[in-house]
């Protein structure tokens, strides 16, 4: 548990809903849920997770902080937006799921070895490095994210695909040497740092 987490716990004590409303992307929508369950039934990965969105919202109201933030449910979101368009109460569920996932990660409460979290993090690091995604590096990092031997196995599995892509000119080995990126690296990074700084300030304001 991060030191930040302890501060947040301190600040909100028993009111997890208020914490979510203040700190989670689109979190102030959570209270509007009427428990119809249409989101739960609409999720293509529904069978894969233990908590449906509507249930997570109820858990938030019930103050089940640790269970919610350590749930892997929101990491299962594939951003298909089915839940959003069907929700009778207009909740931006996809974004709330992303927001919860991010918040859990920030506080260091997300489940260990959550593959999607790892990938999402890799993706973010990859794109923020140069400003554009380097698919080859992303792929390789991905295969090796669970260690070297795993990685070799995985790349072998994927070889045929890699070759296919290569012959279709849709994969360029030279990318390994750097590849695409934005020209204004400095400005780009300054912008991201600033954005991060503003967001941190919001989280950091309490407790201190």
């Amino acid at each position: 548990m991060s030191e930040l987490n302890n501060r947040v716990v301190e600040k909100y004590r028993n009111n997890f809903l208020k914490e979510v409303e203040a700190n989670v992307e689109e979190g102030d929508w959570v209270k509007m849920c009427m428990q119809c369950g249409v989101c739960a039934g609409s999720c293509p990965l529904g069978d894969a997770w233990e908590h449906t969105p509507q249930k997570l919202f109820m858990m938030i109201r019930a103050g089940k902080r640790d269970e919610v933030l350590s749930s892997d449910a929101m990491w299962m979101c594939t951003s298909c937006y089915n839940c959003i368009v069907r929700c009778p109460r207009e909740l931006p569920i996809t974004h709330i799921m992303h927001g919860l996932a991010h918040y859990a990660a920030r506080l260091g409460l997300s489940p260990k070895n959550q593959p999607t979290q790892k990938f999402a993090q890799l993706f973010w690091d990859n794109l923020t490095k140069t400003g554009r995604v380097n698919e080859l590096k992303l792929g390789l990092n991905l295969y090796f994210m669970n260690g070297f031997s795993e990685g070799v196995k995985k790349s072998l599995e994927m070889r045929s695909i890699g070759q296919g892509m290569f012959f279709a000119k849709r994969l360029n080995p030279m990318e390994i040497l750097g590849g695409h990126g934005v020209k204004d690296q400095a400005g780009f990074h300054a912008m991201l740092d600033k954005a991060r700084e503003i967001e941190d300030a919001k989280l950091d304001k309490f407790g201190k």
Partner: protein
Amino acid sequence: MTDVVATNQTILVVGGGISGMTAALEAAECGKDVILLEKNPSLGGRVSQLYKYFPKLCFPTCGMEINLRRIKARNNLRVMTLAEVTKVSGDKGNYSVDVKISPRYVNENCTACGACSDAVSAEFDNEHNYNLDKRKGAYLPFTMAFPQRYVIDPAMIGTDDAAKAKDACPVGAIDLDMAEENIQLNVGSVVWATGWKPYDAAKIQPYGYDRFDNVITSVELERMMDPQGPTGGKLIRPSDGKEAKDVAFIQCAGSRDRNHLRHCSRICCMASLKQSTYTREKFGDEGKSTIYYIDIRAIDRFEDFYQKVKSDSTVNFIKSKVASVVEDKDTGNPILKGVDTEGYKRYANPHDLVVLAVGMEPSVNFNDAPVDIVSNEFGFIEANPENGGLFGAGCASDALDVNRAVQSATASALRAIQVVNQVAEAED
């Protein structure tokens, strides 16, 4: 040319459903001069299309027979059908109302002998049965239609069929040259009882009403159950005529939903509870009903009915807004997908037939009606002093069940009487 004598002591009631008939009758039976307008060829409105009422499971036509008898007995209550209001001007106690009267092509000579109908061959969608079957081009809207007078479908005009109908009529009742009329009425007060319409189920895309034969609406089921309805009272499914023994009811189909109607339509829960008794009526213990709901809204003593239905072993309740309906291509069974939110249970349940408990929206949205009247965001008329001598009644004022609609209509009759009585007082 229709000439209707009306004065600023006349009460105009717009809409000939049960609310309009009630408002008109209560005022007329108080000795007031009343004109009742209906845009369709017959009085009756939505209730004339219902098989049974909740919670008593009695027949709407029973009450309609009484109301029609009351109307027939009243010379101070005049009924105008195929009539629509196009403009309202003036103030409380002195309104002038423009009315458009569409041609029926049949005059008062008609004895409803049916000769014209026998003579014609052209058929059209039967709106009384929500287009589930066809009717002739010369027709009586339904057996209890009032006035008991046939109608020639406007699409018939100019065809041989129309001529055949005319020739077949033994009493010269058919006048194919009848034209639209526009008349003006001077009245003291107007009661708007324009009623409701079922929400367009095709708009609720996840349920596939527009894609799957075996997904129907609650109002269509009412017609199917009627012995004089499109299936002669058989509870069968459209795709293959197979008996629908396992019926699913989807609540809030278009209600309580920002994608559709934001408001709760009040009646749908009770309607589905009622309709769950239809499967038992037809198939006894072999019938099966499943009601998918968010909240069962059976207020006051309707709760007794809910408990009665609940105790029926053939009826199941699942707390869930159904996410989507897909069709099993082999059996034609609709499969309902969703999550039972009481403890999180996923389901993919096949049924014979799915009934969408469609919501209720005002059939005239008073935010853009030919009259200046205060209405809320849902298009229902608000009870507001600014409305002067204009009053909402029944489902023009809120989503109401029949009993409450009649209550509201009775109240509106008094409000209208207040206006004309004040006019009378002022004049003598």
